[in-house]
């Protein structure tokens, strides 16, 4: 019995010591120097779990922007991100926790489905939200105070088809997509619709899902048999990396075309970058760009987090700067209520033009969708190079 109690005591001590760690970790971010004179900016994202790459990137990007802006003087922000583990239920819980914290303006959620759930809450509570990366149409549909920093999924699909048709990159097109993923499906559906309109021939259309996303031989041989010379991959980079490797083993070398989820493939651990040679993708952000602002951001991000920022980080960064611009233009002060700010922000976002890392001259329409032009990139010698 003594032993058992010793075990219990040990476990207690572990919990307490962890609690101490958690407390220390928290201190610098919450105890910001500005106090009550700051705008309370909150967002939810997957900081743990399978989609944590995206949540942490957006959070880190936003944090850099907040620190830069606070250092400038003028408008002050206090940023808090809560974990939603890419689950709508947890996202609503996280959102409510942020509300208790005193959030005035929201960064929505990082991923699409959770953002759909929190968007319904921000709409009901009249808190303005600008999501860095939740790209589904349903996120903004029917909500006047929900805006997006990223392209909407459908826009990516039709832009890709347009791009392929304009540059005559391929005549026979194969698509491999993930049929239990909103992102993949959204792009696939608009791509096929636009392709039909533009007279592109789709010769193979195959799917995979969670759980059978390691072997792509069936999909690839279907594409090969149909004689596809371009394969469109609307998916994130993990499955794409396997597709490249398996296609290379089969001796199948079509042109590859990806979307913004492909961004990050070059920094993926254990992936032979040579396999991605010649892959084309549409993405709003290029970490290797010569642009001054991008360079400074990439350097700062590397210094702090020891990795190359992806598009999500840039979106998070842009969101905070867009807020800064809008708040300044509206003459908003931190003592305004969330509802007052919501009205002002809707007015500003539908009328302003914003230049950021992910595009120049961005504008928003009343539906909340952003209009900016995607950049075509191609991977050459292990680096992204602008296509044009």
């Amino acid at each position: 019995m003594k032993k058992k109690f010793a075990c219990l005591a040990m476990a207690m001590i572990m919990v307490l010591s962890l609690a101490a760690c958690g407390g220390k970790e928290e201190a610098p971010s919450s105890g910001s120097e500005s106090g009550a004179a700051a705008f309370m900016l909150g967002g939810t994202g997957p900081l743990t779990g399978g989609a944590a790459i995206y949540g942490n990137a957006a959070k880190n990007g936003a944090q850099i922007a907040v620190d830069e802006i606070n250092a400038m003087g003028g408008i002050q922000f206090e940023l808090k991100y809560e974990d939603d583990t890419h689950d709508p239920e947890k996202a609503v819980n996280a959102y409510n926790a942020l509300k208790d914290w005193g959030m005035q303006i929201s960064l929505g959620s990082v991923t699409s489905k959770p953002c759909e759930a929190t968007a319904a809450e921000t709409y009901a509570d009249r808190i303005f939200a600008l999501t860095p990366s939740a790209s589904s149409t349903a996120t903004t549909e029917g909500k006047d105070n929900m805006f997006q920093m990223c392209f909407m999924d459908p826009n990516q699909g039709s832009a890709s088809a347009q791009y392929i048709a304009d540059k005559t990159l391929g005549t026979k097109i194969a698509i491999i997509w993930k049929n239990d993923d909103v992102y993949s499906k959204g792009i696939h559906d608009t791509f096929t619709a636009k392709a039909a309109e533009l007279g592109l021939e789709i010769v193979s259309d195959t799917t995979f899902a969670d759980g059978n996303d390691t072997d792509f031989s069936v999909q690839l041989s279907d594409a090969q048999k149909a004689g596809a010379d371009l394969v469109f991959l609307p998916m994130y980079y993990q499955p794409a990396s396997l597709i490249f490797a398996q296609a290379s083993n089969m001796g199948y070398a079509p042109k590859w075309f990806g979307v913004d989820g492909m961004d990050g493939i070059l920094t993926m651990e254990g992936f032979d970058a040579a396999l991605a040679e010649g892959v084309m993708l549409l993405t709003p952000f290029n970490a290797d760009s010569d642009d001054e602002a991008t360079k400074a951001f990439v350097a700062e991000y590397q210094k702090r987090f020891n990795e190359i920022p992806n598009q999500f980080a840039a979106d998070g960064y842009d969101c905070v700067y867009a807020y800064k611009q809008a708040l300044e233009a509206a003459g908003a002060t931190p003592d305004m209520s969330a509802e007052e700010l919501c009205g002002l922000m809707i007015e500003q976002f539908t009328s302003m033009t914003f230049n950021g890392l992910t595009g120049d001259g961005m504008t928003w329409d009343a539906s909340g969708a952003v209009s900016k032009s995607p950049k075509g990139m191609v991977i050459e010698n292990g680096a992204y190079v602008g296509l044009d």
Partner: protein
Amino acid sequence: MKLKLNKTTRKNFATYGVVILAYVLLQVMKGSLSSSLKGMLVPICAYVVMAISLNLTVGILGELSLGHAGFMSVGAFTGVTAAIALQNVIPAAPLRLAVGLAVGAAFAGIAGFLIGIPVLRLNGDYLAIVTLAFGEIIKSIFNNLYVGIDKNGMQFSLLSDKTNLAEGGKLIIEGPMGIGGIQKISTFTAGFILVMITLIIVFNLVNSRAGRAIMAIRDNHIAAESIGLHVTHYKMMAFVTSAALAGAAGTLFAMNYSTIMANKFDFNTSILVLVFVVLGGQGNMLGSIVAAAALTVLPEMLRTFADYRMLVYAIVLILVMLTTNNATLRSWFSRFSLKNREKEAA
């Protein structure tokens, strides 16, 4: 006046009492609750119903089910579809919710019956694995199902959207995207009523002739069969009731969010509910209720731990399991309750 109540009845009334008391207390304090807790009231009710219904299968029937979230999923999708389809027919939200709950429970019950036919012929580990597989099958079906409604009625299609809805039609279930744009009509009061109904159904089933037969099968399958009990019949009765209640819980849960996806109701959710049941004690309904409520709130209370949140959650879970199974503490608790009983008798 002396009310002679046996031990079970007393315990059942205590359970009703605790639930009613919790509801009244929360209603009174509504103004001072944090938004975080307020937002969790409906999910807590849904998980409580899930825990009670799974306790019926695990604790009373004695069969391990690892696919209970599957029934929740069936209830969520069918119930919400019914509520959306009836949006213009039944304008009153509470009534629409009630219809949704009934539809969800009915479909989950049917699913439970169909699954029960092959599954309940198995025992122990085999049954656990087959229920696990059924949970995954249900998830895959809803991930590939498209349901729309237009003036010609409901349209169904599998794998891709071939519903070809007429003008003004609306796609309700969109395959992997699940259901979006749900009107949030679940309320805490509705959740409370559902918990009470669930308790009444389960307690009355357990205390009936059928309930005693079910427990006899749990305790000794062969002995029960030898005295002429129709084993599959009684097993089916418990299993279908359990499935139907889980379906109602699913509808309640789904109607609290603006969007719902099939992937939410995966193996992890089944295990989560099983944890509630094991922690609360198999066959102990009040334990399930407390465990479900506490373990739903706990991760949110731990948000101050930031990155260590899930680690602390796991450690707390281990601690709770250790303490509730600690012989010294248990005897202490039982001494406490004995004293109470003596006082009552005096």
